[in-house]
């Protein structure tokens, strides 16, 4: 499939959105994320990776992919609601987080005003005493341009680690 690159103006607009979103998520401004970034029809997914042989042909019988995140707007709101209870002890004191977004590519799609956006996120967390945690994911997004500006419609993420190396994933990427 050949993808047609979006116009520079669209590219810059969407990159601005990605950076703005990253700053929002690092600062845990989750209500703004829900209301300003996400479409009400958001589909947000990350699967657990597996190590398989390249030549392994047993994929048909292999178990279905297992999601780490498999969320719609309602369930993301539940996750955000948990942080807002003030009872998530692991997040108090607040952990320092940085979302670094790079490798941004923007393409047109068959749907008018919908764009496919590839990016890579390197996520750093500084936790507890001397703990530095790092996650890297590839993201495949679908953004839609509506009268309210650009909104995120779909985000499919690939986590690189086959074993999660942090005691929680109390964050969004």
């Amino acid at each position: 499939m050949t993808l047609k690159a979006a116009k520079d103006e669209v590219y810059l607009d969407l990159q601005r959105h990605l950076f703005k979103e990253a700053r929002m998520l690092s600062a845990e401004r989750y209500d703004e994320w829900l209301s300003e970034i996400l479409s009400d029809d958001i589909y947000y997914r990350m699967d657990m990776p597996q190590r398989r042989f390249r030549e392994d042909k047993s994929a048909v019988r292999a178990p279905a992919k297992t999601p780490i995140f498999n969320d719609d707007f309602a369930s993301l709101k539940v996750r955000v609601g948990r942080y807002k209870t003030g009872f998530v002890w692991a997040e108090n004191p607040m952990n320092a987080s940085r979302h670094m977004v790079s490798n941004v590519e923007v393409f047109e799609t068959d749907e008018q005003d919908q764009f496919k956006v590839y990016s890579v996120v390197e996520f750093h967390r500084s936790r507890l005493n001397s703990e530095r945690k790092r996650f890297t994911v590839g993201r495949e997004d679908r953004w839609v341009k509506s009268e309210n500006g650009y909104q995120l419609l779909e985000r499919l993420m690939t986590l690189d680690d086959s074993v999660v190396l942090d005691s929680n994933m109390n964050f969004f990427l």
Partner: protein
Amino acid sequence: MENLDDLIDFKTGRQKRLIYSDAEIYDQEMEKIFGRSWLFLAHECQLEKPGDFIRTYMGEDEVLVVRQKDNGLKAFLNTCTHRGNRLCKADHGNSKSFVCNYHGWSFSYNGELTGVPLEEAAYQNNLDKSKFGMIEVAQIASYKGLIFATFDEKAPSLEEYLGDMKWYLDVWLDAMPEGTELIGTAMKVELPVNWKLAVENVSGDGYHLGWAHAGAMTVTAESDIAGLSVGNSDVDNESAISVAGMNGHTVLAALDGKSGYAFYNEYQMAWDYLDQNRATAVERLGEIRGEKMWGSQINFTVFPNLQFLPGLNWFRIYHPKGPGKFEMWTWAMVDKRMSDDLKEMILNNVSRTFGPAGMFDNDDGDNLQAATEQSRGWRTSQMDIYTNMAMGNEHSREGMPGVISEGLVCEQNQRYVYRRWLEMMKADSWSDIPFYNNLEEARATEDK
């Protein structure tokens, strides 16, 4: 080595913190507990066809579990018998041979060494290949779909090892004629925690639910689990039981027949399933298990490191990686007869509650990590901690095996887990390890 009796006191519910941090004690655990117990390897459903394999651990030893041509099962150490390299690097898959990346020795999936490069030119055909097959575990056996193995040829049979715990395990494993399956792949998380702290938590600690998980419970609890409340403000201990005294295995169970699905946001689909199949469960399991336990929130612990929770439907094994670290692998588990929609809902709910980004699981890691670290100091390692809640409530109940205390909020089960730990740590061989499945036997075998 410390005096073992100084580490655990069953009578007062005391543990010395050293057991969570000391390297020498950990090495002893690998030998005396993980080297001798029946350890969970895989579910039968994960190894359907000949050549299907799973790479897992027994203690810190890597093993490959492989379905054989005759449909039997074998488990091998995942290591080349030549120079010790790892044989298989994939998590699971299907293969008729395992070829070492180092010098190219190749082993059939039945374990035989079949190919040695330069066998004639370099070994002058003097290598007896029959003596260099993959090394098998001492015993392998299944109980109603769950495959276990032990490194100890003198270990009792799996049936005897599980003892009367089987009566409780059947609430999940044998309620439906088609049995159970694990769906999805393992969700793996590495935690800087001593393995025992995770096991004791799930074995009996209903106390932490309303507090440690207050945030998650506030936003997910659609119904009640044995009266547990957010913030630990109240509890109804009459409607649930803690069961232990079965060779170290434990059960924590609500008795309402439906609370297992309390943390699902579409629990009606699950409750409909329970209604539609209740008669079958009662027919197969009888009134107590079929009516009161099937569908309830239940925590099962098979000593030392397998835990699964019907209702919340997660299934978990802990692989220790040193005194201060383990990997935990979690799957979603379902009845085979459930609809695809219900299975998918369960898989999603397991991810949302107890996966790597699960709202409940994400509350536990830091607490258990800190308890591990606070057992590592020169002073803290000498300190004691206690599981001394609800001492003296232990009793027998007609028609139910094990030692029973009321309630999910009760520390009886943890005391029995640590008792088993000490019994195994002290014993030179299996003949020195006591067996008990009820209050009378548990008292008769108690170390005086």
